[in-house]
Structures are given as C-alpha cells and as structure tokens.
C-alpha cells in the first residue's frame, strides 16, 4: 500500500470521527464547536505531516491548510450560532 493511501486513510478516520462525534453532540452546540475546531486543527496537522512526509512542505502550504481550517471554522460557527 502506498504511503499516500495510508495518509488518506488516516484523513478519512479523522473526518469520520469528527462527523460521528459532531452528530453525537447534537444537543450541545458548545461541544459541537469544540469538536469542529478540533477536527479542523487535526486536518491542518494532517496536511503538514502529509507534505512533510512527501518532502514538499513549504510555508505557503502551511498557510493554505491554516486558511482552509479557518474558513471551515467560520462556516461552522456561522451555521451553529445564527
């Protein structure tokens, strides 16, 4: 199995766990917020590790993953608290 496949399986585990726990906390929006932020941070860390292992980690890539995480958090907060 290729290394990239393993990385994507890890990503899927992170995301499925995130969705599952987010749904599990359906009646607790504060908890949902924490779960969403934790999943976004996990995604950024995953991205950094992934590119580091691939040997193409660059500050621009780190910024890109951070921005994706921030966008996701803003969207989540918008829907959660409106």
């Amino acid at each position, binding site marked *: 199995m290729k290394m990239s496949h393993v990385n*994507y399986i890890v*990503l899927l585990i992170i995301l499925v766990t*995130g969705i599952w726990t987010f749904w599990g906390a359906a009646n607790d929006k504060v908890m949902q917020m924490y779960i969403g932020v934790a999943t976004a941070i996990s995604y950024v860390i995953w991205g950094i590790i992934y590119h580091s292992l691939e040997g193409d980690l660059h500050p621009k890539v780190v910024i890109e993953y951070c921005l994706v995480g921030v966008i*996701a958090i803003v969207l989540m907060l918008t*829907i959660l608290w*409106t």
Partner: protein
Amino acid sequence: MHREFPNVLGYATDIRVDQLLSVTNSNRQALGLSPLTYNVTLSQAAALKAQDMFQHDYWAHTSPEGKTPWTFIQQAGYTYTVAGENLAKNFSTSQGVVDAWMASPTHRDNIIKPSYRDIGFAIVNGVLNGEETTLVVQMFGAGSGQIADAQPVQTVVPEQAAVVEVNHEQAQLGEQITQVKEVQTIPPVESQIVVVAEPTPIRQVLSTMFSSVTNKPMINIPTVTRDVAFLFMGLLIGVLVIDGIIVSKKKIGRVAGHNLGHILFFAALFIALTIVRRGVLL
C-alpha cells in the same frame, strides 16, 4: 437592521402553547403515560422565570441572584410536591422545541416523568446577551394529593418512579432540573409583580401574554445564512474539483496543498453541518 424592520428581515418563529402542550402530551401518551393538564399558575411561574431571565440577562436554571425555578413556582402560588423545568431558546417551531427536548435524555426524563400532573409554558421574545431571543420555559408539577395516584396508564419508568418515592431532596438531572419535596405550606413571598391582590386576572394576563410568539418576516435570517454558507461550501468544493482536474490534466507543477484533502475536508464539514438545527436547550 432586523430590529428596525422585523417584518422584512428577522427570525421566523411559530411557537404556541397549545401546540407545545399537544406535542408534549402526544409523547407522553405514546409511552402510555397520562397527559398533563395545562395549569395557569405554572404558566405564570414560567412567565415570571422568562421575565427574570430577560431582566437580568442570563440563560440558566438558577439566576445570578440564586433564584431557582422553585422560587418562581412558589411566587406564582403553585403548591407542589414535585416540580421540574425545561428551557429552550431560539427554536422556530413548537414541534422543533419538543423534538429537541425528547432527543435530550435529561429533558426527556422531565417530559415523561410519571409523577407530573400539571404543566405550564411561557414563550417570550426579547433580547438576551445582546441577541434577539425567543425563550420557551416549560414547567412541570404535581400538587399534594396528585402524586399518590400519579401512575402511568401502561408503562412505568422504574428509576423515575423510585426517585419520586425515595428522594425527597432536590435532584438535578444534567441540565434539566427537577425537584421533589414534601408537601409544604408556602410562606409569604415578596413578589415583584403584584399577584397577591388580584392573582387570577394577572395570572390570566401573563399566561395569555406569553402564550405564543409568531414572526413571519419576508427574509428569514437563519434560513438565508444557512443557504449562503452551504452554497459557499458547494462553490469551494466545485472550484477545488475543477482546479484539481485542470492541474492534473495539464500537469502543472506548483507549491500547494492537495485538492483531494481539501475536498474531503469540506465535504465532511458539509455533511456534519446538515444536522445542525436552530435552537439551544438548557
């Protein structure tokens, strides 16, 4: 802007006491429990609680001054042996409120508690913590003489029945709140609202005033916000897919993250957020 033109831009709400009572009792009857009787005094207690929350700007079962739900129940003049309270805010429909309570184990425990006989509601609009809020206060109770025959029609929830018999102290179940106590004579309570002189008319006025909140703005803020957010997520996924296809076909070399990862991440966010409904319980 929505405060100046609430009929144009606002929060669509249609919550009514008769619907809350009907849905609550439907849930009880589905479990073989007796329906609860609407009680004006409990509704007044709920209205007093809602007013206090807006007045002192808090969202909790116990006020910053230490007032518990039982304070308001006693203040309204309801003599209870067992009582409870469920709170909700910012829901759009009566069905949505009760469904959310039933989905929360602690609030569900209150709704299906066999020992309750009476129920009261208050639905009040106001500004809480700086945001326009529709509060729903649901109060349960049973007076002296009622609890003895407080048996379910068919099904008993043993743990709850045991609580009524054994525990004569305040019991707090998670975030919903319940109190069981010995029958007592209610001492005179200093009332912020004059209920002693003319209790019945004021109770009726209060319970009537807070019996429904219905807003039908032309533009519903939560719906529009939600639609825009989901549309944005869809656009992001679409752009990432197209970008990935172009980069892959033209074999463009660049320093960038992997589109597939971003797509999976936003897709997961999209799926997770589909279950989010407006409203918060306590």
